[in-house]
């Protein structure tokens, strides 16, 4: 050290600094700064989030996800939402939308992994029917559902891709490949819909619902990947066999879509990385099939030959299939809206609520609005409440002018005034629901939507409600609670959990968005 110091000359310092600066400059040149890309993605892709750090390390690209439903996503892209990339379980709907509008959102598309949407059926029933080993057609499934011998869970085809793929594949199998709008409502579809007992707006929540009600259900339609992992779930009482109908299924192929041409180079880098053998192996561990031929299919995949159904050629046909299923084939239920009309709703809150309810009656003509509309024959009830529950108004929904105008006046007549008796209103709603169930039978689908903008101020409290519910609450009538304004989020959450429903936050999204989302669960 001493020797070095003694030989120190300013010129060395200068040279050292130059070398240091150059080296720093060169190192900096070599490493590009992290690039951020915005991705609009389907919610079923949430399980790739753990890969984000690795993607960033290997490619220098940080992906920032916004999650949404398939139709929701298509709608926002068509409305000009600015994203660099999109990643959905499939791009067929978006492709057809492009075809129809003549706009080109998708600049490039590369599939990353695949998973067919299939039926998981309890092994004992499957074996009794000979379905676990032999070929099964969609007609077999529809016939079994029609007799009540196959009660299944499935997501809403307008809000979730697994329900969408099921309905489209079945319809194509029944009507033939070249189907037209006139051919979509066939008897076999009505038979199939008879078995559709459990409803959900998302593929993930459907699994929870199935687990809760597995004793009264025979199976569920979902992604092969979801069903394979469900079969590993310790809460599952009976293993499921996976049924791949012989006319074909529709496979999710998870294409990564380039939306912004300027990001093409980064896009290609990402695609190459996601298709690399190591990442494909990891994706396969999530139950998805690899697209890279170098990666051999693991033995855990039950069926080597997946027969793929053709997908309809036009948007009109797809929309007609969805509308027919929701409006004419699926059994309409009773949807009871328990609505807070306390004084605090005055002004903006009440305005939003009224617009939302008008929208669901058919005034919202957006893509998502059309499919969220009340369904033909569905019983719609409004139970407003303030310091106490008010009187019920209800209708069998239909698009005739009389019903529509009655509904519209009932919505317009809602008046904000008084306190907030959440739990008295809920008890009243359950009593009304029980009467309806008495009339229609045990499997009549009923759901409550509770919207409140404040804490409970009158009537029984949460604890009293809990005791009442445990003693008298009818089974399988979930409450979908909407937190709004100053409502107690924790309390709204607990109501949903207690009743097997789900809580939605009306403060993060518009009330209209939240109510449309809930329609997927009804």
């Amino acid at each position, binding site marked *: 050290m001493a020797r070095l110091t003694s030989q120190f000359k300013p010129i060395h310092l200068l040279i050292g600094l130059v070398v240091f600066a150059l*080296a720093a400059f060169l190192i900096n040149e070599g490493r590009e700064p992290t690039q951020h890309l915005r991705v609009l993605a389907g919610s079923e892709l949430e399980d790739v989030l753990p890969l984000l750090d690795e993607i960033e390390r290997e490619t220098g690209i940080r992906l920032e996800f916004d999650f949404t439903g398939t139709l929701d996503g298509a709608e926002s892209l068509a409305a000009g939402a600015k994203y660099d990339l999109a990643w959905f379980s499939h791009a067929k709907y978006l492709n057809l939308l492009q075809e129809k509008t003549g706009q080109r959102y998708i600049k490039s598309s590369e599939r990353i992994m695949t998973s067919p949407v299939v039926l998981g059926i309890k092994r004992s029933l499957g074996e009794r029917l000979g379905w676990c080993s032999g070929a099964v057609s969609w007609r077999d499934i529809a016939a079994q559902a029609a007799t009540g011998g196959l009660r299944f869970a499935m997501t809403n085809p307008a809000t979730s891709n697994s329900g969408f793929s099921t309905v489209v594949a079945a319809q194509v199998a029944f009507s033939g490949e070249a189907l037209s709008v006139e051919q979509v409502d066939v008897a076999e579809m009505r038979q199939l819909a008879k078995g559709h007992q459990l409803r959900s707006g998302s593929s993930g929540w459907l699994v929870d619902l199935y687990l809760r009600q597995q004793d009264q259900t025979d199976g569920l339609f979902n992604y092969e990947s979801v069903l394979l992992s469900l079969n590993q779930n310790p809460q599952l009482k009976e293993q499921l066999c996976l049924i791949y109908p012989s006319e074909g299924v529709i496979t999710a*192929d998870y294409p990564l879509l380039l939306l912004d041409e300027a990001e093409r180079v980064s896009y290609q880098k990402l695609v190459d990385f996601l298709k690399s053998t190591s990442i494909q192996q990891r994706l396969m561990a999530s139950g998805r099939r690899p697209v890279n031929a170098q990666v051999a299919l693991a033995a855990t995949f039950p069926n080597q030959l997946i*027969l793929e159904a053709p997908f309809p050629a036009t948007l009109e046909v797809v929309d007609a299939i969805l509308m027919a299923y929701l409006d004419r084939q699926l059994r309409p239920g009773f949807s009871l809206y328990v609505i807070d009309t306390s004084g605090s709703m005055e002004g903006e809150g009440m305005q939003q609520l009224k617009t939302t309810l008008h929208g669901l009656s058919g005034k919202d003509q957006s893509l998502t609005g059309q499919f969220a509309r009340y369904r033909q024959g569905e019983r719609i009830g409004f139970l407003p409440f303030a310091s106490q529950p008010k009187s019920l108004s209800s209708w069998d929904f239909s698009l005739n002018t009389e019903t529509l105008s009655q509904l519209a006046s009932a919505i317009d007549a809602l008046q904000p005034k008084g306190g907030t008796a959440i739990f008295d209103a809920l008890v009243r709603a359950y009593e009304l629901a029980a009467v309806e169930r008495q009339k229609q039978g045990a499997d009549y689908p009923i759901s409550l939507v509770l919207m409140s903008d404040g804490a409970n101020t009158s009537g029984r409290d949460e604890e009293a409600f809990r005791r009442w519910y445990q003693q008298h609450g009818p089974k399988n009538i979930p409450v979908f609670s909407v937190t709004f304004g100053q409502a107690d989020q924790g309390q709204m959450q607990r109501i949903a959990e207690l009743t097997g429903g789900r809580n939605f936050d009306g403060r993060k999204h518009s009330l209209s968005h939240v109510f449309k989302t809930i329609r997927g669960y009804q």
Partner: protein
Amino acid sequence: MQRRVLAPFLAGLLLLGVAAAIWFSFSEQRQLSQRLTLRGYTGSENIDFFRDQATIQRLAELGFAVEIRKAGSREIASLDLKDIDFVMPSGAPAAEKIRAQHGTPAPSQPFHSLMAIASWRPIAEILVKNGFAELRDGIYWLTHLDRLLQAMEDNQRWSDLSNSQAYPANKRLMISSTDLRHSNSAAMYAALASQIWHGDVLQSIDQARALAPRIARLFLGQGYTEHSSSGPFEDYLVMGMGKAPLVLIYESQFLAEAAAQPSRLRSDMVLLYPQPTLFSERQFIPLKPAANHLADVLMQDQKLQQIATQYGFRSRDPRLFQEYVAAKGLRTPEHFVDVVNPPTFEVMEALIDAVAKLYH
């Protein structure tokens, strides 16, 4: 003492290196600026040829830098071509469409391919057993495309065929193709079917319109179809036999994949040659005078012709293609006796327009 020499020495070396790097990079820039940069659109089936390093390098030696973009052959005509120097669609009707709409000079045909059907050994065997196809010298010939089309018209399902246990599908017989409204390979399929059903090349717009409903069923029956030829072939490679038992492709797509490293072709994938078949020339059309020279180079340069054979294209000099195929141990027919021509542009357009109307 050592250190005293080493520090300035290292610093000097670094400076020298930096200077050299700057000089090299600068001279590269200068070279680049001397090159003629040309922008073009081509069908997806030709894109890999242009993106190949060997192509890029050879073109650079010859003074070109080419920026290539992908578009369906039949889509090109309707794109904004203001800043585009050349286009290279596949197939004469697509080229004529561009000429008709943009008044471009005559195209040249640097290489070509022919229509074939990508399939699977179990499927090919079922076709042989049901009298649609024959295996001759290790090559599957779809000798009775007419009967296959008939079976499709009769709504036959795979499970209706005899000896079809290897493909237990309740799905209808169908050849997958691209979207007829956007892509040349689909137009070639329509041309082939019209030849068989009409008994000759369609001669008039009236004949085309009369045949449109039957042709439409071949496409509508497939449901949703992709715009670009790489789509159905990707389905074939990735989704497998369950999605794509029979896929209309260019022979070149299959041969290029066979030679790729790593190749995605598996041992049970086979190519069927329909009889009759159609040739499909790659049509180079210069839009700006600057691209004329590129046309000459693509036509005449041995090296580029050779690279094209690596992408499965049949070269202008057939020997290049045969040498390449032999070297790769692939089996392809050398001679085709039964080759038909597509209808003229006007007739083809009339047919496609009439079919497009039936989509809605």
